[in-house]
């Protein structure tokens, strides 16, 4: 499913991301804590992740990035950082973030990247479609 899981304390970035991704067929799913975000990602590992960077979670975020990339090196992870945290951009990129957005008003590049990354992910199949697919011979 074309889905972006956002992990942030408020819905500030999610609102901006919904706006930026409008019309792309990408669902924005909000979580408020890392355990919830992790669970959501485990349930839908094709999803992209957008994690908020705050002054108090730099260390945790780097470890979360490392953890996700250990499990799925191809995972698409973006970091949503406040401008004051811009100094961390290159560290986070080295840790595996594909993009670091520094303002909710400048999500164009991230939206383009997400659309390109998720274009190969099939849209959610309907139950009828799944049932039909299940009847097709010579599956996996």
């Amino acid at each position, binding site marked *: 499913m074309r889905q972006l899981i956002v992990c942030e304390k408020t819905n500030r970035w999610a609102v901006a991301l919904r706006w930026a991704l409008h019309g792309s067929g990408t669902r924005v799913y909000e979580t408020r804590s890392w355990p919830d975000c992790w669970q959501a990602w485990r349930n839908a590992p094709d999803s992209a992740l957008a994690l908020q960077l705050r002054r108090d979670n730099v260390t945790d975020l780097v470890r979360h990035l490392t953890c996700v990339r250990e499990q799925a090196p191809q995972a698409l992870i973006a970091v949503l950082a406040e401008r004051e945290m811009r100094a961390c951009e290159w560290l986070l990129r*080295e840790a595996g973030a594909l993009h670091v957005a520094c303002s909710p008003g400048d999500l164009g590049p991230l939206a383009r990247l997400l659309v390109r990354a998720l274009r190969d992910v099939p849209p959610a199949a309907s139950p009828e479609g799944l049932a039909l697919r299940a009847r097709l011979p010579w599956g996996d």
Partner: protein
Amino acid sequence: MARTRTAAHQLVRFFEDSACPVYLLDDQRRIVFGNTALTEWVGLPLEQLMGARCDYCAGDDQTRQRVVTSALCPPPEAFQGARSTGRIYCPLPAGAPPHRRAEFLPVATAAADTCGVLAILSPSATPETDERGQADSVSVHALHELLQKLTAELRRPYCLDRLAGSSAAMARVREQIQLATSSQAHTVVLGPPGSHREQVARTIHAGSQPSAAEPLLPLSCPMMDAELLRTTVQAFQRRCDASDATPTILLLDADQLAMEGQMELLSWLRSATCRARLLATARQSLITLAEQKQYSRELAFRLSTLVIELPSLAERREDLPLLCQQLLEEHNARGGQQLSGFTAEALEALTSLPWLGNVRELADVVRDACARAAGTRITLQDLPDRVRTVNQTAAHPARQDEPIVLDQFLAEIEREVIQRALRRARGNKAQAARLLGVPRPRLLRRLTQLGLTEPRLTWRPSEPEEDS
């Protein structure tokens, strides 16, 4: 003249007598004075410090001297005339406290231009002891310090010892990695999916001193368009220019970079400003792709100065027990349940698999097995079902594919869809035809042909009404 010399000498003696490290930087951020306490604290002779430029950056240190000078650098605000305090974190020889409270005093000329910064380091302090008015400055320093520590932590896993394997193929790979590390040439790491191409490329970058490697920018090529590539690389280059570091760009899946992206990268490589080292990972040879006109020939040759080919796991089965043990011990290192190894049965089952997903697949299997293990060793029962299934399947000949009759099969599907449409339209054939996007006469014809005209095969209410 003599009086001036005496006064200067007295000033130097005054600072020399101080137990606190003291140093002075000129407006170019070069150390022009340092006392004995400073040289003792950082563990470097004064000759190595004098004239060295201090850059306010993290993780771009190549030598001990640069580790020290970047740690000693005052915040940029100090060079703009703002007095500030903070903490300095310097990884020191054993025994010395790594933290010092620092006071940065800008030295201004008569024209109010800052001509230098005097730094005085007092014994270690915690952020709580800093003045309230300097809280913001302290938090900025804390972030800087944190970045230095995290960069070192991040690069620690990338060392040659982590590439386990005693096979001839892996011995050759290790030799090539050492060559790439020492040569600084552009390098392509080729290998099948899951063969740890990125790990190898990062190991090359990390070199012999992971914490002291130059800045690294990994780029996922399949997701990069030309514009994003240009802006990201240019921003990275600016950052590296500011700290006088040599950047390394890691092109992940470089064989999947779009042609516009290839052209953009090539024009940047041709430019005079480019002084980056490029490391790339790819599934297939870039030169082969260029010969098939699917890749820029010039870029392929530029990137392929050194080519390291990683073998698939199936080609180095002899390494499997060692790899399994390494992965298991990595699990032990995370804490939790400790395991000693694998039973012979489990290892045999693992060795017989085709391992199309290579080391990554093996890592997943070992992780699952570690989570399931009840005893101190991983047994056959602890291995995931798919491993055991593959082994059982290998023991039995594969069943032949059963043929189908296509027309009959398609008719079955059509019948199912028509029935669903009729149910949705509550038996109304005109509405069902609209739902199916066919004319009504055609639907009626198909209903007859498919034998769906009898009432029991068309729409029925879900709960039939009882006769009164």
